[in-house]
């Protein structure tokens, strides 16, 4: 089982770097994961990541991209409610990259 080390702690991840246990998540882990992808987490990134975590806590499922863009637009303003904005933040796809940093389980299906 692959692991990553953050702040002296060893954390189990799968072969693509998704957390095995969601309870392991911390902000430092998200930052460390992003660093590996050469991505510096800004306030804009955190807005999306925190939204994903809240959504998951409420519904126990990661939102579909369309739901995500709409909800982001509603919460953070219409200029941010489009997939272009999300892809600028997370170039490998919000469903994949953002979920990974947020410590959500790997999205299923061919997204």
């Amino acid at each position, binding site marked *: 089982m692959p692991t990553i080390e953050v702040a002296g702690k060893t954390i189990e991840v799968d072969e693509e770097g998704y957390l095995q246990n969601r309870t392991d998540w911390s902000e430092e882990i998200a930052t460390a994961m992003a660093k590996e992808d050469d991505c510096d987490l800004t306030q804009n990134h955190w807005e999306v990541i925190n939204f994903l975590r809240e959504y998951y806590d409420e519904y126990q499922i990661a939102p*579909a991209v*369309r739901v995500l863009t709409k909800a982001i637009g509603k919460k953070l303003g219409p200029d941010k409610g489009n997939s*272009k904005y999300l*892809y600028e933040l997370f170039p490998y796809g919000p469903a994949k990259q953002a979920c990974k940093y947020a410590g959500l389980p790997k999205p299923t299906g*061919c997204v």
Partner: protein
Amino acid sequence: MAQDKPKNPEKHSTFIPKEKKSTKPFHDTPMLDQLESGPWPSFVTGLKRLAHNNNMMVDLMGQLEHSYKTRLGYWKGGTVSVFGYGGGIIPRFSEVAEMFPESKEFHTLRVQPPAGNHYTTNMLRQLSKSWEKYGSGLIAFHGQTGNIMFIGTTTENTQHFFDEINEYGFDLGGAGPCVRTAMSCVGSARCEQSNCNEQKIHRTLVNNFIDDMHRPALPYKFKFKVSGCPNDCMNSIQRSDFAVIGTWRDDMQVDQKEVKAFIKSKGRKYVIDNVISRCPTNALSLSDDDTLNVDNRNCVRCMHCINVMTKALAPGKDKGVSILIGGKRTLKIGDTFGTVIVPFMKLETDEDYEKIKEIASNTIDFWAENGLEHERCGEMIERIGLVNFLEGIGIEVDPHMISSPRTSSYARMDDWDQEAEKWRQRKQQAAG
């Protein structure tokens, strides 16, 4: 020829290169080997050929044999993508990577072919070379999705391969809940029956929705297919959510001299048995002087007579397209054919092309707003009703959408007179 002998054993074995460049010894694969003993060239021979150059394929064959033995599949999905794209890659990770480490990652890339699949041999060589450099060498040309499927590469090389082919003009196709790679028939370049510019329609539609193809955010897949004539070589009615089919609205062209020549060479009986009596609507009749009469009003464009008597008969001159929406295979409900939404439209000027773009984007927008998760467009129409759908995309009902109202489940007769009056007014307005 005996059924259990390879059809062409000498040629068959020449597929295997003499020099072995792979450094890994082959796994023992008795079950795969048996598949090579059939009368036709086997995919196993193909895999072996590739395995001579590539350790990845050696382990792939090992895993396949293991799968056959245990009767289980060992591939699981993942979330690989290239920079800036959300779709286009089918990730595959091996669950038995400890036994077969070389094929641990075996991702597939979907690459869009040119419209109408018009390649130059140079393009094909370029693609093969790039794939040998970064992938397994295994290519499905083309898969059922219409894409070129480049099967088998690692997560790292996915990006390298994409960068290289993108450099010389290829782009990834769609995978996931998005607009998928479109398909168009070979069209007017090679086919006399063509009624429209298939390639231009294909490009217009795809280029307009390229964002929806690379960044999946729709309820489910959405496919465009373009066929140049009602032969529908792309099977667009059955297989696409948005089918564009070339057709004509004037009379079929008949060259009576060629009709006579055809009858002379084939005989009257042949023509009656194979053309006249096979017309599904009995719209053809053969006169005593060997001329052909066509009842164009009752012709349903089945294309049979035109396909048989290629010299004598041809589609009419006033050409255009029909648009059918909602075809799909079984998902939430059983298979559906596309429903005629636009009975006939001309596609010649830039405004015409703008109009087809508009219909397509209205359809996708409406479906994206109203479709449920994992629901195809045709299923949404079935759920909410065709009239609501037409209203949603801003298309007025038209009697041409149905051929026989009394047997169509879409037609209601209770407010027929008012609706007919409305239609007459719309027609007058359009004319005025």
